[in-house]
């Protein structure tokens, strides 16, 4: 008896610790977030849209469906088939959504489903950011500042940032857009066009170039080395900062949503506050999606006054 009680006092190994200490079923929350992403952020061809909407609504209404691995395998196949059908235009986060569904299907086949999903999520975040860093480091026109100069001078998504921090007026943006349109016109014969560049652009370009590279590298390292790093704020805090800062500028809300969903999934049992932060981040992104341009313009106006 004494032996038995000593054995019971050893560190317990739970084979399926899915309901966390707070009583919330981690896996179920992850499934709901992924279904919401399928419902809101996959907008490819009609057959992808139709089948994923049906699947997502069924999963949200019937809890027994959303934890079946077959459902997630079908979702992954449909998303990735849609990406392949539109390979010339499919953004990277569309593939990441498909990968996430596949990771879910794999995790649901595992014995330790939460840990399996957490491991996959952690490495998927590390890889997404690591690959992004690799591309930036190998790209000459990123490192010399050309990329962000171009974005600030010509990309309408960066118009407000360009106006606030680079002194790029709407007239300059319009002139540059017209120059690019002339260069790329189907009946054009030009091989180069001059751009208008205001004097105060360089500091903004340097900041954006190196800040982006630094935070992406820190996130990639933070998630890759997570088991050896006890500091949760590093990886979780930086990822949430990245999502909050980047998607306030570039409205790729689908990317932010899948990052926050994976961030939630990889949280440890004792990181409940971070889980709540990821959930809030996910909700805020959806709200932001609905009124991105209005909010963005309001912030710019407020900062300018």
């Amino acid at each position: 008896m004494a032996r038995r009680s000593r054995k019971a006092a050893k560190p317990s190994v739970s084979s399926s610790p899915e309901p966390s200490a707070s009583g919330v079923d981690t896996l179920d929350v992850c499934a709901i977030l992924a279904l919401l992403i399928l419902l809101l952020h996959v907008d490819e061809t009609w057959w992808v849209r139709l089948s994923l909407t049906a699947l997502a609504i069924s999963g949200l209404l019937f809890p027994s469906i959303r934890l079946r691995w077959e459902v997630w395998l079908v979702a992954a196949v449909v998303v990735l088939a849609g990406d392949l059908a539109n390979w010339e235009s499919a953004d990277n986060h569309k593939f990441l959504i498909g990968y996430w569904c596949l990771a879910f299907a794999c995790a649901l086949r595992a014995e330790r489903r939460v840990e399996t999903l957490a491991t996959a999520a952690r490495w998927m975040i590390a890889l997404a950011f690591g690959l992004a860093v690799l591309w930036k480091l190998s790209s000459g026109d990123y490192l010399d500042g050309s990329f962000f100069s171009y974005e600030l001078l010509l990309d309408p998504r960066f118009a407000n940032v360009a106006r606030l921090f680079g002194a790029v007026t709407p007239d300059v943006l319009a002139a540059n857009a017209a120059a690019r349109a002339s260069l790329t016109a189907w009946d054009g014969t030009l091989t180069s066009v001059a751009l208008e560049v205001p004097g105060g652009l360089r500091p903004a370009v340097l900041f954006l170039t190196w800040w982006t590279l630094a935070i992406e590298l820190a996130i990639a390292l933070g998630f890759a080395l997570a088991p050896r790093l006890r500091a949760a704020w590093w990886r979780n805090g930086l990822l949430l900062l990245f999502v909050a800062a980047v998607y306030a500028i570039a409205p790729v809300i689908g990317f932010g949503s899948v990052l926050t969903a994976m961030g939630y999934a990889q949280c440890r049992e004792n990181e409940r506050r971070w889980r709540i932060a990821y959930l809030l981040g996910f909700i805020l992104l959806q709200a932001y999606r609905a009124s991105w341009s209005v909010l963005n313009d309001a912030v710019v106006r407020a900062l300018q006054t």
Partner: protein
Amino acid sequence: MALGERLVAAATAVTCHFDWCVRDADGPLLRYRARVALSDRDRRLAWAVPVLMVAVAVGQMGLARMADLSPWKGAGFGMFSTVDGVDARFVRVTGTREDEVIPLRLPPSLEQRESQLRTLPSASGLGALADRVAAGTWERISLGDAMRRYQKQRDEESLEPRDTRALEELRRAASQGSRPVGASLLLTRMLEDAETAMPPGEVLVLEAVEAAIWRFRFDPAGPALRAEPLQVLRRPLRPGGS
């Protein structure tokens, strides 16, 4: 939990990358739940997708380096790393007739093929596009201004009174540098399938078709956008068109 057991658990935590701990619901002590390594099967399931991600990304990088795939596309996570996105690439198609080089605007039915070529240029894709353009029926259309067409129609239908005020506005616009009233634009367009040339359109007989994929780069010294052809293909259609 006894101190010794806590020490054992802590040691397990360090050596086994232990990182799951929960506070007991009924007590202040931390109860450690050792996170033993995942079983081989679970580990394979956890790593399946990250390995797939790496494999796809390696393929994407290879295609970007060797076949000019845009780094923004192809699931390699190269977005926002270079100017060389799909928008920095464009397709120019021209037809040759006698000594005249005529820019050809691709119809909507070829837009996806054009977009694929901008993302991943290929000689075969460019050849297919040129063949499709060459096989198409091109007509030259002349667009007069809408006001004159309207006036003509009113005249033919003998409707009175004429709307001379709008015509005056057009004349005023013309005097300020717009297209002069009465001048016509000369355009070429490719007929879609099952569409026949309508008079007064003139069907163009082309001697050769040239298709080119261009890419521009940002030149910080300019500053300017400078374009260069990535691939050019010329397809003679008749003996004189080489």
